[in-house]
């Protein structure tokens, strides 16, 4: 079966510190991968998506970057965190090869920048 993992679950970081959030998917090959951010009281905003290893598309200009070093691994990073980077970060995957399928979401990482 397919599963998606994110870690850490919760993170408190000072302003200016680096960030690395990891997402891994099991049970599927070559999925599309996505990073979303959910700010307090707001909907979900698509930050990045990837259709393959090393292929990253950015949806909004920001302080963050993403990488996909392996087929089922998606990393969200920052060199220097800002207060505005606080939020709930969700990773999602879309399985390939089955027509118009559905995005499945991980449990999320709650990031608080102080």
């Amino acid at each position, binding site marked *: 079966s397919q599963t998606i993992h994110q870690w850490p679950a919760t993170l408190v970081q000072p302003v200016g510190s680096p960030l690395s959030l990891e997402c891994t998917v099991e049970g599927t090959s070559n999925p599309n991968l996505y990073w979303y951010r959910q700010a307090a009281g707001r*909907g979900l905003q698509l930050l990045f*998506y990837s259709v393959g290893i090393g292929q990253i598309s950015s949806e909004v200009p920001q302080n963050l970057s993403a990488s996909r070093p392996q087929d089922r691994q998606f990393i969200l990073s920052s060199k220097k965190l800002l207060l505005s980077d606080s939020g709930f970060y969700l990773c999602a995957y879309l399985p390939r090869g089955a027509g*118009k399928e*559905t995005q499945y*979401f991980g449990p999320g990482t709650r990031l608080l920048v102080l």
Partner: protein
Amino acid sequence: AQSVTQPDIHITVSEGASLELRCNYSYGATPYLFWYVQSPGQGLQLLLKYFSGDTLVQGIKGFEAEFKRSQSSFNLRKPSVHWSDAAEYFCAVDTNDYKLSFGAGTTVTVRA
């Protein structure tokens, strides 16, 4: 660009009462439509989806949604809510590019 509107930020409903959450989209053609639910501090769980065919779709947990092309709507309904239905609900559309646009969400509170 497509957009998704959920007009109701917060809805309070009594346990056992019916629930309807509104969703309107703006797009030239018929998009693929989804409803997700998010319990506090959790990720998103798919409730149901509409791609084509029967405009009334059934989902998990007793939810259903009806696609109305003339109104560009995809409203979510449940005949009788349970306390465990208290959560935030998101409508989303995929306009055939494998990316989702989400509404701002509707928070549902269930009172005893």
